[in-house]
């Protein structure tokens, strides 16, 4: 075998591999693009973290959406008299911006969805919002909290829940009125969610003359809170906002109880801590008597959804389920209002519609607040709840 033939063979092998990779890539792309639109199906895209540290949000969001999907497809969606069924395509974005961008681009360009649901992590939402504008496809975030997602806003990107910056002014008067604190402290997760929570609440409480005495941040997935709780104990605040996901919240309460901080100091949890999961993780005694800002009040229709979730997924109620459920319903209502599959018309319908969601009264407005212009932002007042000894939610205000 002379060298010439052997070298030729090797290069040809390389080019075969390279060409195969390129051909498969484009053929697949081509196939997706040309996929004949199945008769009368409304394709909706959903990008959420199904792996990585925030995987729990994606899983819960998907539960809410799939229950809503069943209800919608049972009735069917009627546009100009024709019955459509809805199909939701979901991709994992691992709570990381480049993955989210790739997922949404694939949904819009390959799967030809007419609207996007997602995502959950603010960093991913910030990557998705401009894509919705660029491709003129309406998108609704499930639960991103940071203000920056809708201010500066994007014409095609909507948010139902009040952003962190908006929650503080809405709930602070309720807390001042019901709990009358003079010194407050914060123990928050060190990410966009935690940082914007502390920043906005600190500003609002200063407005009412209540000073912040201690501010501690911990890493996502942290489990040892003794150092932070010891620092908080030394600062002696009246109430402490603890901000994170329920497992962290449960550990904080258990470890705070161990250090004797509870019941001496009133603990108010971020919206995560208004979920039954906190009770199941921390146990009734650790949770009893603590407060939480909750995104849903114990209303009858939510109990009905909770039972469906229990029966279908054997999982406790979680606000991401409520948001997923509301998001799909709001989107379908907009499609029915617009009576068309044209994304631009759906966007306009979304801007005009009002919807009585499980979370609260949903209306997308554009308004000025605290020097920031919000676009397509929902503005209902969150609820202050107190956990009873029996592990039930008791509505304190508004």
């Amino acid at each position, binding site marked *: 075998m002379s060298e010439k033939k052997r070298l030729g063979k090797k290069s040809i092998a390389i080019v075969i591999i390279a060409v195969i990779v390129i051909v498969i890539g484009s053929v697949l792309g081509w196939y997706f693009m040309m996929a004949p639109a199945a008769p009368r199906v409304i394709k909706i895209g959903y990008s959420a973290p199904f*792996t*990585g*540290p925030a*995987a*729990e949000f994606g*899983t819960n969001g998907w539960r809410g959406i799939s229950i809503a999907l069943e209800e919608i497809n049972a009735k069917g969606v009627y546009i100009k008299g024709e019955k459509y069924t809805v199909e939701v395509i979901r991709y994992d974005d691992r709570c990381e911006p480049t993955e989210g961008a790739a997922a949404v681009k694939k949904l819009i360009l390959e799967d030809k969805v007419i609207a996007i649901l997602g995502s959950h992590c603010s960093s991913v939402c910030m990557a998705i919002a401009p894509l919705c504008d660029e491709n003129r496809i309406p998108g609704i975030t499930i639960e991103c909290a940071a203000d920056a997602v809708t201010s500066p806003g994007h014409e095609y990107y909507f948010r139902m829940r009040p952003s962190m910056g908006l929650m503080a002014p809405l709930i602070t008067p309720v807390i001042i009125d019901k709990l009358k604190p003079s010194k407050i402290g914060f123990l928050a997760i*060190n990410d966009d969610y935690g940082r914007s929570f502390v920043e906005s609440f600190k500003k609002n409480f200063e407005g009412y003359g209540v000073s912040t005495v201690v501010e*501690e*941040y*911990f*890493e996502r*997935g942290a*489990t*040892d809170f*003794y*150092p*932070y709780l*010891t*620092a908080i*104990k*030394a600062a002696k605040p009246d109430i402490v906002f603890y901000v994170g*996901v*329920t*497992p962290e919240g*449960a*550990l904080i309460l258990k470890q705070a109880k*161990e*250090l*004797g901080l509870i019941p001496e100091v009133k603990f108010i949890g971020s919206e995560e801590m208004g979920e039954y*999961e906190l009770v199941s*993780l*921390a*146990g009734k005694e650790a949770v009893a008597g603590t407060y939480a800002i909750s995104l849903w009040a114990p209303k009858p229709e939510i109990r009905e959804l909770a039972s469906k979730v229990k029966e279908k997924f054997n999982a406790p109620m979680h606000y991401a389920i409520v948001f997923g459920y509301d998001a799909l319903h709001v989107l379908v209502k907009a499609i029915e209002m617009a009576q068309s599959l044209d994304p631009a018309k759906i966007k306009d319908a979304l801007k005009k519609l009002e919807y009585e969601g499980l979370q609260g009264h949903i209306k997308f407005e554009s308004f000025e607040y605290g020097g920031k212009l919000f676009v397509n932002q929902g503005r209902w007042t969150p609820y202050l709840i107190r956990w009873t000894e029996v592990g039930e939610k008791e509505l304190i205000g508004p």
Partner: protein
Amino acid sequence: MIDTIVLTQLLNGFILGLIYGLMAIGLTMIWSVTDLPDFSQGGIYIISAYVAYWTITLLNVPYFLAIPIGALAGILLSVAFERIVYDRLRPSGVLSCLLAAIALFFLLENAANALWTPKAKIMSVPETEVSINLFGIVTSYHRIIIFIISVLLFIFVHLFIKYTKIGMAMRAVAEDREIAALMGIDTSKVYIATWALGGALTSVAAILISPLYAVWPGMGTLPLLKALVVVILGGFGSIIGALIGGLILGLIETFGAIYVSAAYQHGFAFILLLLTLSLRPKGLFGRR
């Protein structure tokens, strides 16, 4: 008031150090005998915690019985990896073994996430969560159990390595694999024993710490990294080194988090590593 906090933190740091030490012994044995910093132990740490969690919740087996069951799972997994993956890859060098270890860790972490959903599970062990006041220090009964079990394990492993036949064979292979083989030591049997020991220690560490913290797919990464630092700090292949190194890291992290900065809590391990490698690369008790 202040000193009780310091005392509590001292105990917490001590307990944390023991956990790092436990895992570090397993790693230091595997690393010295087989020249492989076994990242897959991080995966075994996760799976054994889940096994213990499920045996407690589904089969409502008491916590103390769950420890050996979890440890058994760790041993089986550890030995399975050795026989199936590492044994085949050894001829193509440590590089491929190291990458296989990382891939296995990656696989176990994602498998746990896919199988048992990412939601963190708290291993509630009522009998041991009773908080007691030990001359001023507010601590839980469980931490005392961790203390007792880990010290017993340290002694057992120390004796096992020093006086049993397998233990000596392990040390011989750690010194020099070729010569040990020449002297008639069946290296593959020694590898299996080392991996079994490593797997067992990693699982016990995981199961002991789970009730204090939580069981979730991402729980393996940081303890694995910290244990690797402890192995280097304590000295390659030395049991006492792993224990002392673990305690040092545990205490530095706990006190560092309060007095220096909580955000960089996990960064201290890195600084400790840099100091060790520049001042005393062979570690406190290392020989090589």
